[in-house]
């Protein structure tokens, strides 16, 4: 038995464990500061948010311990079963009474659990199992905009789409748009595994072009030196043409002559698509969106400010973070992001980053961002050292989910992303998310600790 126990712990990645422990304990102390009530000061009081958080962390760590004693193959084999159970929960929860207008909670007394949080775990497991078992992408067709290529893509990927699609649609029915968006994080995995082609890159480029289009579309500006006044859209098109010209010259002088023709074709095709896309975005923005939606987009893009109306949340959040200064106001000294003042809404859940940044200043916010970055890079490196395809895919799923939550939550608080109500992993108040992210990490740690003995 001694040998077995040694084996369990010998290859555990303690860096991830350490980061986990730092995150949850900072999270608790931060929630304690945010909701601190001098009349009810107990740390382990289950009526308080920090008390509940500690309880959930305890439950998570206990489950984590159990996972460590399981056999990794058991988890792999149970993937679809777990997925199935969670899908069932997602169906049942739709028939639960609505809380805040959404059917997302199983409530037991003052405790509640959101199956949508566990949904990510289910998808991660099922997707890993599916992709690990499917044969590696064979003769891949070179990407082109043709019907045959699209049908080929669908034929190869339809099971993946189903695994992702069922929970995504169920979550959307609650409705919980925030979690729905998180399901797009699995594109990262598909990209890494070669199933999404360069779709990820195209997506990123498309988003950048779309954002720039929306920001400058209805502005005019003077062209420097030439004194020509032009609309923002014309400016983008000209910028695209100039970029195309640069690429053309690059191809002309760098690429071998025989390889040039397809690149020329791709370049001209991309240029036409990009210009059409710009026009499409602008047309869609002005045609399909009503004023309310336009206002929301303009708020997100920073084109307008509306501190007491639409932009209330984000204005308060930014003021809280910005007022933290370099070294912060001090522990329990937040004047905006605390439960007492209530200037920042949802400051213990979606906007927990505000309390942290207000009290700890730039030093604190820098540290927290750094911590998540180290965790993400660490998970990528863990993924890449696996001989097991299942574990590698699973690790990328975890990385993607963590990254999405981190990017959207922090980006929202500092005004770089739209206001989408999702928690900061392991840091925000919320039992379900602590449980879900803990399980995601513990399973990863367990699978990783078997990296030397598992080849599959």
């Amino acid at each position: 038995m001694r040998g077995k126990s040694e084996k369990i712990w010998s290859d555990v990645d303690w860096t991830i464990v350490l980061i986990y422990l730092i995150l949850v304990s900072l999270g608790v102390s931060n929630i304690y500061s945010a909701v601190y009530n001098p009349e009810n000061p107990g740390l382990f009081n289950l009526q308080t948010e920090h008390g509940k958080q500690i309880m959930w962390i305890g439950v998570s760590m206990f489950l984590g311990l159990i996972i460590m004693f399981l056999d990794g193959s058991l988890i792999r084999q149970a993937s679809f079963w777990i997925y199935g159970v969670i899908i069932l929960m997602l169906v049942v929860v739709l028939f639960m009474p609505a809380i805040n207008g959404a059917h997302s909670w199983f409530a037991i007394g003052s405790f509640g659990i959101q199956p949508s949080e566990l949904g990510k775990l289910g998808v991660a497991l099922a997707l890993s199992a599916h992709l690990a078992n499917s044969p590696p992408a064979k003769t891949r067709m070179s990407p082109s905009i043709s019907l045959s290529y699209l049908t080929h893509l669908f034929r190869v990927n339809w099971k993946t789409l189903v695994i992702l699609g069922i929970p995504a649609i169920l979550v959307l029915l609650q409705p919980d748009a925030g979690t729905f968006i998180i399901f797009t994080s699995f594109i990262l995995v598909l990209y890494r595994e070669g199933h999404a082609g360069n779709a990820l890159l195209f997506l990123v480029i498309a988003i950048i072009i779309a954002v720039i289009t929306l920001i400058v579309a209805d502005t005019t500006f003077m062209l420097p030196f030439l004194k020509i006044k032009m609309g923002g859209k014309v400016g983008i098109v000209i910028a695209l043409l100039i970029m195309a010209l640069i690429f053309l010259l690059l191809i002309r002088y760098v690429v071998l002559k025989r390889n040039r023709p397809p690149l020329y074709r791709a370049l001209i095709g991309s240029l036409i698509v990009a210009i059409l896309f710009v026009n499409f975005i602008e047309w869609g923005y002005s045609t399909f969106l009503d004023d309310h939606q336009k206002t929301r987009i303009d708020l997100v893009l920073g084109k307008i400010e509306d501190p007491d109306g639409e932009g209330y949340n984000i204005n308060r959040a930014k003021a809280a973070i910005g007022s933290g200064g370099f070294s912060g106001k001090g522990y329990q000294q937040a004047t905006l992001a605390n439960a007492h003042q209530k200037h920042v809404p949802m400051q213990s859940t979606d906007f927990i980053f505000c309390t942290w940044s207000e009290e700890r200043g730039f030093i604190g916010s820098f540290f927290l961002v750094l911590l998540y970055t180290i965790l993400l890079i660490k998970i990528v490196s863990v993924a890449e050292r696996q001989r097991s395809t299942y574990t590698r895919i699973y690790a990328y799923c975890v990385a993607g989910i963590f990254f999405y939550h981190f990017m959207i939550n922090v980006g929202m608080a500092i005004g770089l992303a739209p206001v989408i109500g999702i928690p900061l992993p392991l840091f925000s108040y919320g039992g379900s998310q602590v449980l879900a992210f803990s399980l995601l990490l513990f399973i990863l740690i367990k699978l990783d600790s078997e990296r030397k003995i598992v080849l599959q």
Partner: protein
Amino acid sequence: MKNIDNRKYIIALIFTLIPLIFIVRLFYMQVVDDKWKERAAQISENKVITYPARGIVYDRNNTKLIANEVYYDIEVIPNQTENPDSVTLAGLLGISLEEYTEQMNKARHHSKIKSSVIVKQMPPDEFAMIAPDMYKFPGFYEVERTLRVYPKPIAPHVLGYMSEVDSGDIKRDSWYRSGDMIGKSGIEKSYEKVLRGKKGVKYYLQDAVGRETGRYEGGEYDTLAEQGDNIYISLDAELQEYGERLMHNKRGSIVAIEPSSGEILAMISSPSYDPNLLVGRRLGQNFGKLQQDTLIPLYNRAAQAKYLPGSTFKLLMALIAMQERVIDSTATFACDKSLVGCHNHPTARGVSDGVKMSCNPYFYQVTRRIIQQGKHKSHFKDAAVGLDIWADYLYSFGLHKGLKTDLPAVESGFIPNTDFYNNHFPSESNPYGEFRWAFSTIYSNAIGQGEVLLTSLELANVAAIMANRGWFYYPHFIREIEGGTVPDVYKTRQHTKVDPEKFSPVIDGMWRVVHEPGGTARRARVDSLDICGKTGTAENFKIYNGKRYQLKDHSIFIAFAPRDNPKIAISVYIENSGFGGTWAAPIASLMIEKYINGDVKDKRKEDRILEADLMPIEIMNYKKNR
């Protein structure tokens, strides 16, 4: 497959690029850009200004002239109200339902979480009535404010009034915020910075609905309001009050100065008004009425009206001529009525006689010698040089150039010089021109009837200069500032260009004006007070529809007393009332007697003045027609 393995680097790149963007953004927000710190303060802190009580103004005998009275503003924080019954509340606050609704809408529009005033300046007795019921209306509460009160209804032109700051005031001095009060005239304006005190500030933390949740940093940055400094002004409240009684039903002004200090003892402009009419809510009701009053009571005749000095001006002619050595004190000139009109009297032998008899031809001759000194062959050039010499002397008496009095709106009189006749008179478009005029053109000035104009304050200052034999302090009100010092300008003697010994014959004449038979101001005599004075009578007319109407003369008197160690110098100007000796002289003597003796013996003289209604007829008609 190799190709696909490289994708891990792209993923790692994305995983570092996004956090890097976040860190740059966070650094900008938290360290570089102060905008969010200001926003945070606006959101989470409530800066409550506490207003200091204003400094008290006392007279020279420590009588309160301006004091403070507590009033209550009723304010509301819309978010904290609990659907109050509008009818009951409006009734309680003593306003109409419409006004209540309007004020509440305004308040909600202004801010839901910050307070707005619903009822302004509720007197303490009214507030005492509603105070017990206020608790029934959460969100409504009272704020103590102080307003000015004038214990004696006197000297409005001197003390001034206060009103809410306008945008100009706020622009000039950022100390003020909309709704603050500021001195708009008089002493209140001149000593605004002394009287206003220091505002206090309390920083509260507030929650999202505007409720106070504690003190910011434990009150570390809070400051207490400090009351403004009290000031003591030179006015003698009793004398001022007496003068205002004497001036009842008369139009004109009295200015009395303590010659040895330049302190103004009384400054009366009639018609006047009760300064309490322009306090707080009453300002709005009364200011317009006072402004439209045809008697223009808001106008400070004592410091702003420019008058012909009449014969009082002769004193200065005599002094200048002696100083210029164009005559000596024994100079004798026949009363040649062909030069300028005069009354019948014995020939004036010497300056003293000339002053006593106020002989017009005598001063024609005296002034001609100042202006036409014969230094230049050309008669005209001679006059041009002489007039500027003459004007320079008069400037040294504080005329024309400004007396630097500590009132905000003080006018200066007018002393014509060569430039004036060359380029501006009789009209800008058709002036006399250079070397086109001589003394014979402008001789009326010699007897105070030409183009010269003096204010009552300047006239009183001339009286003070006579009393001091040649020097003066700029006339002023300030005596003492608690915690401050009187400006040096009021402690510096100003010397005229006339030597002290030249004053003796003139003062001798002034004494004889009052005391000797044949003097023009026998009515001013008070036993044992040795009053020295000089009457003046200024012709005046008004033009209606292009026609010139002769109006009743202005009655003028300047005096000081006693002859030795004078305690008071005074000017009295009664518009359209007659000879100087008839009205202005006795009024001056009553003022002098009241000030020096504390009481007036000759009650018949006093009653004659108190009962006299000297309001000009044309004005009387206006009054009736109103």
